[in-house]
């Protein structure tokens, strides 16, 4: 599995990109958004959800977006930095008029750009002019992907205008040295290019009705052309990997078996990390199985506005990923860990799938809009996922008893855990979380943790989760409503009237924390085992399945592999600490792409040649770079 967290280490990636495709698996940390630009992009995103979360739209303008480096929201920011009033926009939000909100928000951003351009042209010194140009350009980012997708000529023309505008602001130099005057005429001409386009496309009195809200220019919408804007996530989204990175325990690996000798497993490992098996927008965003379940564990930071109610949760049957699968219920679930997967069936939080194969197909086809996977793909994914083992824990015996290494409080807690309570129907905690079957019973129970969907509903049963490894998977319950294991104990004590004393609660919590602990929960990186080295090793292992697929002339599965791995290898090179070695990795990625190119033209000899070269070059890099 590739470590997508690597992208997070890109130092101060200040690019004006949005989290958008087409991308490989390594997402780029995006530059912070100006408050009103962030609110606009959130409005577009939320406005495409059904049902439309109007409260979230209001919040998008009133509060800083999640993770914002600005302490105030768009409205307060506008109040302090602009003469443009938001009243028409706020009125439209109050009326829950989607089209009016789009129109008012779009015009507000366009006016803000013009306002900053005015300031730039009127500025009496270069520093202030440049500051206004920078601000205007940051606001233009709100529309940039729509213009680039729909009108590349205009995008280029405006891009050059920004360069021209900034260049013509002049320079104050330092203490007079190196000072150059501004060229007002050039500034005004460049500004005109931008403002004219805004006037025609974003300062329109009466926008055409939008089925899908986007930053597409009005003239293009009116033309009726079908334009695909690359999918993007709104400000506040987080699809980076966990930090620290969880340790991945694979059964075969612990036994000293090399993954390159298990081609089906290796191919499944690749698929688990491939966005190619999903449809858009997931594919374009680089979302893969490992985005949520990286290293077989839980991505506790994953967050998508409108689809997540808190980090580590996602509504996979909402409007965003696959509209046809939209159940129109706002029901995000806490992402479950996949450790020990072969022991934890049935699958799904409510245990709706007895078969892991059926569950996996549902994820690919329904939740994320992918094409029907081939039997080979499902076989491979299952072969890989069934290797996920629980984290070793020296405080537990294989049959779930505490060892002498467990703290005393946990020993006392174990007795409570096994004590039948009348309030539980003379059952104990261990009745469902059975210690010698990995602390679960493979059944669904209604413990009262789910709000009734309607009067008389019998829909509250949830699959018993294992307690193993839970120290690292907070929060708890299907909706992530309980932040700590202590809160879980409190919930049971209070909702089931168990009558535990404070000390007993503490002991029971200590027991859960002992059962849920691990000897080495996280991957240990050092100067030798670097993040890139791990990624490089994983990617070359994925590629090793070509030794099996090329002789079989299995074009479909070869191309899925080369498209995934070549792009990932190239993208992960950006995380290398040895910057000078990056070109070698880019060349290696190109070599793998050449395998795919040859297969596409049915030139199997060339494919074999490129694959042989890849292996040789990969070995050389492995020796030199590490």
């Amino acid at each position: 599995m590739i470590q997508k967290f690597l992208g997070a280490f890109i130092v101060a990636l200040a690019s004006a990109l949005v989290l958008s495709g087409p991308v490989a698996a390594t997402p780029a940390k995006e530059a912070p958004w100006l408050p009103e630009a962030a609110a606009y992009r959130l409005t577009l995103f939320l406005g495409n959800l059904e049902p439309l979360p109007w409260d979230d739209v209001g919040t998008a303008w009133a509060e800083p977006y999640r993770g914002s480096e600005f302490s105030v929201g768009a409205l307060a920011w506008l109040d302090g930095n602009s003469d443009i009033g938001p009243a028409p926009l706020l009125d439209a939000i109050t009326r829950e008029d989607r089209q009016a909100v789009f129109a008012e928000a779009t015009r507000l951003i366009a006016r803000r750009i013009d306002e900053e351009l005015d300031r730039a042209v009127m500025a009496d010194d270069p520093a202030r002019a440049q500051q206004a140009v920078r601000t205007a350009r940051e606001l233009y980012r709100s529309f940039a992907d729509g213009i680039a997708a729909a009108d590349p000529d205009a995008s280029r023309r405006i891009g050059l205008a920004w360069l021209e505008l900034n260049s013509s602001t002049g320079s104050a130099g330092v203490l007079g040295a190196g000072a150059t005057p501004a060229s007002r005429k050039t500034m005004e001409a460049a500004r005109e290019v931008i403002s004219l386009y805004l006037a025609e496309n974003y300062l329109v009195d009466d926008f055409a009705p939008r089925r899908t809200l986007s930053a597409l220019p009005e003239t293009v919408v009116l033309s009726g052309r079908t334009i695909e804007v690359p999918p993007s996530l709104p400000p506040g989204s987080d699809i980076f990997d966990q930090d620290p990175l969880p340790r991945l325990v694979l059964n075969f690996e612990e036994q000293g078996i090399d993954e390159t000798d298990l081609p089906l497993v290796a191919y499944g490992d690749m698929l688990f990390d491939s966005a190619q098996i999903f449809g858009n927008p997931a594919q374009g965003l680089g979302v893969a199985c490992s985005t949520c379940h990286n290293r077989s564990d839980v991505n506790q930071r994953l967050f998508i506005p409108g689809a997540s109610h808190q980090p580590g949760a996602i509504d996979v049957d909402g409007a965003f990923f696959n509209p046809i699968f939209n159940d129109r219920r706002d029901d995000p679930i806490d992402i479950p860990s996949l450790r020990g997967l072969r022991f934890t069936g049935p699958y799904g939080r409510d245990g709706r799938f007895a078969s892991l194969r059926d569950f996996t197909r549902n994820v690919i086809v329904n939740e994320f809009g992918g094409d029907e996977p081939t039997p080979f793909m499902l076989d491979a994914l299952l072969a890989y996922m069934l290797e996920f083992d629980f984290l070793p824990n020296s405080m537990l015996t294989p049959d779930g008893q505490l060892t002498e290494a467990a703290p005393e409080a946990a020993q006392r807690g174990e007795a409570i855990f096994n004590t039948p309570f009348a309030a539980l129907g003379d059952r104990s905690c261990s009745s469902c979380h059975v210690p010698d079957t990995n602390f679960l019973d493979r059944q669904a129970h209604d413990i009262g943790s789910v709000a009734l969907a309607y009067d008389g509903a019998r829909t509250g049963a949830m699959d018993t989760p294992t307690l193993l490894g839970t120290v690292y998977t907070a929060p708890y319950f299907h909706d992530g409503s309980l932040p700590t294991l202590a809160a879980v104990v409190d919930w049971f004590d209070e909702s089931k009237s168990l009558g535990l004393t404070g000390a007993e609660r503490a002991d029971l919590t200590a027991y859960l924390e002992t059962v849920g602990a691990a000897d080495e929960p996280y991957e240990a990186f050092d100067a030798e085992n670097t993040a890139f080295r791990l990624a490089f090793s994983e990617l070359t292992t994925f590629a090793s399945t070509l030794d099996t697929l090329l002789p079989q002339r299995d074009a479909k599965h070869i191309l899925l592999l080369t498209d995934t791995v070549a792009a990932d290898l190239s993208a992960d090179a950006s995380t290398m600490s040895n910057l000078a070695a990056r070109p070698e990795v880019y060349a290696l990625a190109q070599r793998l792409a050449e395998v795919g190119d040859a297969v596409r033209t049915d030139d199997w000899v060339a494919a074999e040649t490129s694959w042989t070269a890849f292996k040789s070059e990969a070995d050389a890099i492995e020796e030199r770079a590490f």
Partner: protein
Amino acid sequence: MAIHMNRRTMLALAAAGAVSLATPLAAQDTALRLAFIPQENPEKLLGDIEAISGWLASEIGVPVEGFVTIDHAAAVEALRNGDADISFIGALPFVLAEAEIGAVPLLSEVYRDAPSYTGRIFVRRDSGIGALADLRGRDIAFADPISESGYLYPLAEFVEARLIDGPGAAEAFFGRVFFAGGYQQAMQAMAEGLVDAAGASQYADLLLTPQQQAQVTWIAESPPIPSHVVIARPGLDAEVQDRFTNAMLRLNEPENRDKLRYLYGPDGYVRADPAAYDGVRDMARRYGLLE
């Protein structure tokens, strides 16, 4: 990120932690004032300044205040007019400040084990451009005219290659020369195909997306350029200078390294070597910025 200084320019922040834990200095009865050049988010910088000022105050034994200036020029101006005692600044503005007002270099930033970096000429891999000469008549974006790695040094590579006669003759060689406003803007303009090349810091390609990084390469590299420098106004009490410098050097210690992120994120600091800036002084003379 845009810089919104219209209300915030020269906004002084009293350090939250200005209560001294160290021995107070009689010589510095007022706060030590630090001028910071802006970065992508002024609000974040203000928070960072508050954090680092508090720590410095406790280490040095005098109150420490920090404020953000609108640009390098304003930071130097603040030293000249006494609004600031210390400034964090680039090598070129430093040598100009040194010549004009006698500014003193105290510390140099360290990146990847070196208190220096280079400027490079970047192009797209698919551009067919393999040498500086290939850029004749083509368009180039630099970061800023007062930028050592984002203009002076990369342009000097064309002079070294005898493609242009001197800094003033660039327009005759290139099609267009743009100043994009920063490394990232120059690199984006090149990566997006708006211009054929970009002149920027050797690390500037890290400002592109991973996908864009794979699509660009560099065709020329300048000699080492001294990294950004922490400078003091002339006449600042010698003991205050020492205490400040020693405190800053303690940022290299493992227990303090997390605070480096409040200061533009270098890997550490070393004492500045004034002679290390001779090359920058020469360069400034070649460009007519110094006499």
